[in-house]
């Protein structure tokens, strides 16, 4: 592992940064339950479309305060929903604030939140949405769904693709024919419509967890076909390599040759393919949620946070913070692409 990091750093500083960025991002999303200041469906009914709170260190009289603080806000213009700060009372940001009771990791219940301010003021790092829910909390909580769907989905389709492609390429003949025809049938359909029709096969009134697993299944079912095809091609060429002949001359079984000698030699490609396809899963989930077929309200995912802005052109001018989910998708996507490109070089022993 240390070698790996060293090589990654040597290969490029940017990819090294991307690697740690993604690790931290995934950790943050894993601990989202702990880090959020509000529960994801807690509504500030009087504060819809609230812009990101201003955090102050210096009060109106010019005094500096060590503890950052916010002011309470009130609606200034009810038509355009502009807010003004009430400078009379300071609300310092506190740690471990009491709030409504909630579940953490489905294990224990608590009333404590990591940070926050006293009522009636609110701290909205990324503003609020139509119902006055804190976007920051929803984004963090939603990242858990979006990021875990992508990882689980990618792993499932990777395993499926490896098995099918490996078998088809190595054994050839009728196995190859049957498996590749199945793959082609899957690839014939435009993936987005396939995704929609697969979703349409299931009822709409599923629980969130059911929907979650359904989406993982749908996304990985679509994703494995292309991977299987490319792995088959690689296996076809690798099995003619001399070291495979050498492995056979050592008396190794077909299974062992396939799993230990041929498939690892496709990793230089597959690892890149995986990291590059992760964003595809995030986008796939977003697309389903955007159309209302994915994760249902009030549960947040990056897709359905974005979907709340659909058909609401005013959002772009008046509440651009609602588009932050898109920015997060973009950042994750870029980092995965950079990392994927670097991994191909770093994991190949020939470059060591």
């Amino acid at each position: 592992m240390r070698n790996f990091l060293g090589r990654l750093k040597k290969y490029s500083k940017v990819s090294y940064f991307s690697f740690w960025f993604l690790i931290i991002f995934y950790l943050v999303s894993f601990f989202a339950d702990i880090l959020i200041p509000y529960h994801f469906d807690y509504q500030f009914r009087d504060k819809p479309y609230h812009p990101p709170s201003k955090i102050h260190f210096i009060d109106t009289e010019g005094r500096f305060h060590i503890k950052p603080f916010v002011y309470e806000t009130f609606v200034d213009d009810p038509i355009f929903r502009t807010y003004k700060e009430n400078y009379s009372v300071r609300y310092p940001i506190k740690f471990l604030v009491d709030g409504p009771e909630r579940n953490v990791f489905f294990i224990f219940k608590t009333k404590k939140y990591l940070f926050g301010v006293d009522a009636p003021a609110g701290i909205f790092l990324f503003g609020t949405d139509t119902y006055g829910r804190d976007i920051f909390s929803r984004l963090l909580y939603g990242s858990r769904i979006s990021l875990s769907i992508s990882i689980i989905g990618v792993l499932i389709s990777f395993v499926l693709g490896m098995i099918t492609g490996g078998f088809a390429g190595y054994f050839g003949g009728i196995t190859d024919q049957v498996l590749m025809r199945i793959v082609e049938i899957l690839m014939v359909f435009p993936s987005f419509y396939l995704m929609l029709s697969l979703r349409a096969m299931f009822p709409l009134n599923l629980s969130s967890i059911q929907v979650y697993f359904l989406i993982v299944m749908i996304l990985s079912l679509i994703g494995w076909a292309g991977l299987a095809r490319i792995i088959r091609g690689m296996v076809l060429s690798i099995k003619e390599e001399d070291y495979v002949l050498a492995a056979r001359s050592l008396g190794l079984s077909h299974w062992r040759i396939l799993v230990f000698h041929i498939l690892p030699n496709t990793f230089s490609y597959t690892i890149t393919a995986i990291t590059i396809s992760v964003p595809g899963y995030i986008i796939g989930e977003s697309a389903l949620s955007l159309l209302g077929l994915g994760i249902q309200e009030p549960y947040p995912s990056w897709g359905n946070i974005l979907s709340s802005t659909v058909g609401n052109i005013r959002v772009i001018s008046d509440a651009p913070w609602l588009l932050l989910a898109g920015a997060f998708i973009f950042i994750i996507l870029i980092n995965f692409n950079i990392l994927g490109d670097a991994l191909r070089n770093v994991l190949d022993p020939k470059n060591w």
Partner: protein
Amino acid sequence: MYLTRKTGEMEKILEIKNLYVGRIDGTKILPVLNNIELSIYKGELFCLVGESGSGKTTLALSIIRLLPKSFRILSGEIILCNKKITGISEELIRGLRGKLVSMIFQDPGAYLDPLFNIDTHLRESFHGNPVEFNQLKIKVITEVGLSPEILSVYPHQLSGGQQQRVLIAMALINNPSIIIADEPTTALDVLTTKQIIKLLDQIRIKHNPGMLFITHDLNLALSTGTRIGIMYRGCIVEIFKPNKEKPLHPYTKILMGYSEENHSDISDTTLMDTKQETDEKCIFFERCPEKKPLCNRKVDFIWRDETTGIRCIKYGQNSQM
């Protein structure tokens, strides 16, 4: 030139009887190996010499039963350590590979998996008890003249000679009865070649396996082999002992520079269109400087005694009489 040669006790390790191998090309079957007669004894270094395309590698691959898909063993028997390996299932033969017979290949770089270090390569080769492996790997790797530090190194970080030594170590680790070396020195320079040959000779004397050494370098074969087989167009035309007798077959004489090739009757087509019409006349008919009208018929391989033989009417019959 190298260490003392001894044929050892005459225990047959490999016996090939009347082997025919063909390549399937559509509906036709093109003969690749014809009427191969060969036996290899324990502790000997049998050199197989021939031009490119004469079927040396095909013969080696049919012994280990790793022929490419389009190739078939048509008839004949291969007996390895008293086990008949023609006609038995792939599962059974797999158990013999590496244990009874192991192979050293031509281009060592290509035959090592680029993703694994040398330790993994040896572990993959080893068929026995994993507990013994850790002692054995050090023993084997020092025996082939490498330091144990090399175990953690990846193939591309080694030189050609070192890679070849690793392949030899992999072939050696199960202590097989026969080692087939398919042109192991072709990709190496002259000095490394000498070292590798010396190493193979040392191993042969120490562990006493039979060795089938395939090369196209006749001089190398003459200086190393205990017996030499000459291949031409899919047939073994002569088997002789280099230090005891002079070869007799016209082709061998040409190879050794004793006589000139008969160019008059050779057209490009007869050279290109090899491995056919062998039933009608002697395979060497067109190029033979000593041909007679008598040669215009099928000639079989004739054993002169237990270990040597020839495929030529003129000399074969002489010795039989």
